[in-house]
């Protein structure tokens, strides 16, 4: 909407460039809307969140801002809630990444057999990918509700429980519940990516392995898996980045509770920034998130170089 007039207004401008300016200037002009929007709404916010992370600020008056140095960060290190949120974020990220990759690859192999019914499974698996995490959180909250929830009914029917279990209200189960809901939502995503990767496994290598009399699992281990390394690195990175930034589903299902058992970095940042107006602390938390995400993608590039 905003850029449409820009693009239209660009025509005479570009014509003038053609006569007077170098082609380079035309290139810059065409890239300018993207670069300006990105600079204004991503790059500048990144820079300013770094700056405000070194200040005390309640978010209202810029003049009330005070320089704190690394105090916000130092404060986080001794903040038990931060440490809990950090640990939960790592647990969530590692658990969802491992589960999603294992389940996604397994399902891709199953779908790739093209047996009857696998096409239907593929379509069904992709449905949750299309949903907003808000709705996914709502569905799982309904399924896991203590009274009238589907899981308790099933377990009661099977005679496994006699009292309703409040899955989301119990610190022992809540984080696992959020992890399972997330795996449910994105298993189809990982499956589609692995399935695409499987289509690129070189047939010639598989045939050669077959001629050498390789067993099924040998072929999988020595031909299929190495051919999937690139896909695997992309999928794992996307899962890790998605895990680190997790917010929606936690916010909807548990709001970080009970007693912080599902608190993650993004929900804690939201609480600090928008409920406690501690913008400095919230900014420090945001910087931790950004550093973790960039660190993960740098790590992937390093690992890729070695395979």
């Amino acid at each position, binding site marked *: 909407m*905003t850029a449409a007039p820009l*693009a239209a207004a660009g*025509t005479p401008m570009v014509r003038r460039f053609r006569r007077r300016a170098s082609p*380079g200037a*035309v*290139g810059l*002009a*065409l*890239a300018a809307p*993207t*670069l300006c*929007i990105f600079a204004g*709404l*991503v790059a*500048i*916010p*990144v820079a300013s*969140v770094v700056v405000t992370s070194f200040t005390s600020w309640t978010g209202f008056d810029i003049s009330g801002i005070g320089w704190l140095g690394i105090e916000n960060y130092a404060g986080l290190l001794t903040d038990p809630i931060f440490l809990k949120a950090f640990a939960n974020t790592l647990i969530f990220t590692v658990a969802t990444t491992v589960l999603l990759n294992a389940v996604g690859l397994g*399902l891709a192999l199953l779908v*790739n*057999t093209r*047996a*009857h019914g696998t096409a*239907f499974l*593929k*379509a*069904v698996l*992709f449905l*949750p990918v*299309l949903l*907003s*995490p*808000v*709705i996914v959180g*709502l*569905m799982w909250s*309904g*399924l896991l509700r203590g009274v009238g929830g589907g899981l308790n009914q099933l377990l009661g029917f099977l005679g496994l429980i006699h009292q309703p279990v409040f899955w989301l209200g119990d610190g022992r189960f809540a984080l696992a519940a959020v992890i399972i809901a997330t795996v*449910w939502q994105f298993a189809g*995503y990982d499956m589609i*990516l692995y399935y*695409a990767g*499987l289509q690129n*496994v070189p047939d010639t290598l*598989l*045939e050669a392995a077959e001629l050498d009399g390789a067993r099924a699992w040998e072929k*999988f281990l020595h031909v299929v898996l190495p051919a999937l390394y690139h896909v695997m690195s992309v999928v794992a990175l*996307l899962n890790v*980045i998605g895990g*680190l*930034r997790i917010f929606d589903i936690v916010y*909807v299902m548990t709001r970080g509770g009970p007693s912080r058992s599902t608190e993650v970095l*993004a929900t804690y*940042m*939201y609480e600090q920034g928008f409920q406690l107006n501690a*913008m400095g602390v919230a900014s420090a938390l*945001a910087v931790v998130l*950004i550093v973790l*995400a*960039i660190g993960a993608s740098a790590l992937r590039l390093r690992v890729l170089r070695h395979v």
Partner: protein
Amino acid sequence: MSELALPAAPRKFRPALTIGSLLLSIVVLTPVLWIFSLSLKTSRETLRPGLLPTDPQPGNYVEAWNRYGLGQLFLNSAMVTVGSVIVTVMVSMSAAYAFTKIPFKGSEALFSLLLLGVVIPPSALVVPLLIEMRYLGLYDNRAGLALVYVAFGLPISTLVFRGFFATIPGELVEAARLDGCTELQILWRIIAPMAKGAIATVVILMFLANWNEFILALVLLRNAGGFTLTLGINAQLGQYTSDYHLIAAASMIAALPVFLVYLVLQRQFERGVAEGALKS
């Protein structure tokens, strides 16, 4: 092409694979079916055991639609999504064209910087974005929210377009230039019609991301009249637990359009999502 990619399943396993697939499908569908069943129950029945509604209430859907103002929420989501997707496609396509066909001084470095945006979590920028949007007078404004969606969509969209444009021969562009076409004419009249696949990929990626987006909307919109669907449904959570059947109905209504589009465009969706991820 490569049915071999799996250790080719012997014929005798095939029935087992089929049964396994169908069982898995049922497991995966369970949460959706559960909410669907809930959406047809009476308020009282949502608390009682029972798989299926004893007396299905299709009227729940009408009541949810009216009570939660789903019409307005739909409209808001549609405006924000359609607006942001169109702008993202146009703007990122021009940039990708510049990056591939008219490289300028520093274009490589700028592109690398833009790529960093793929990994920046939007949730980490909500504090400065809120301040900035207030300052620009775009806080609590649907167009402002759409613009932020554009900003976060640009890195991946530019990347997808750049990947496609790199396959277009330079001679084609050169020939058009000799014919006197301006760069914008080349882009919109010659390149864009060839790039339908890449456009479809970007549209699908951005449609899914922006239709379902939550945290930016939560922070940047305040007035319920401008809420998007996800935000409106979230606002009902925890209000009255006795209305769970209505919230379930609202969720089904919100999920329906995406499901329908997927049914029609299944292949494009799957390809678009795979390409969007694997091209990086």
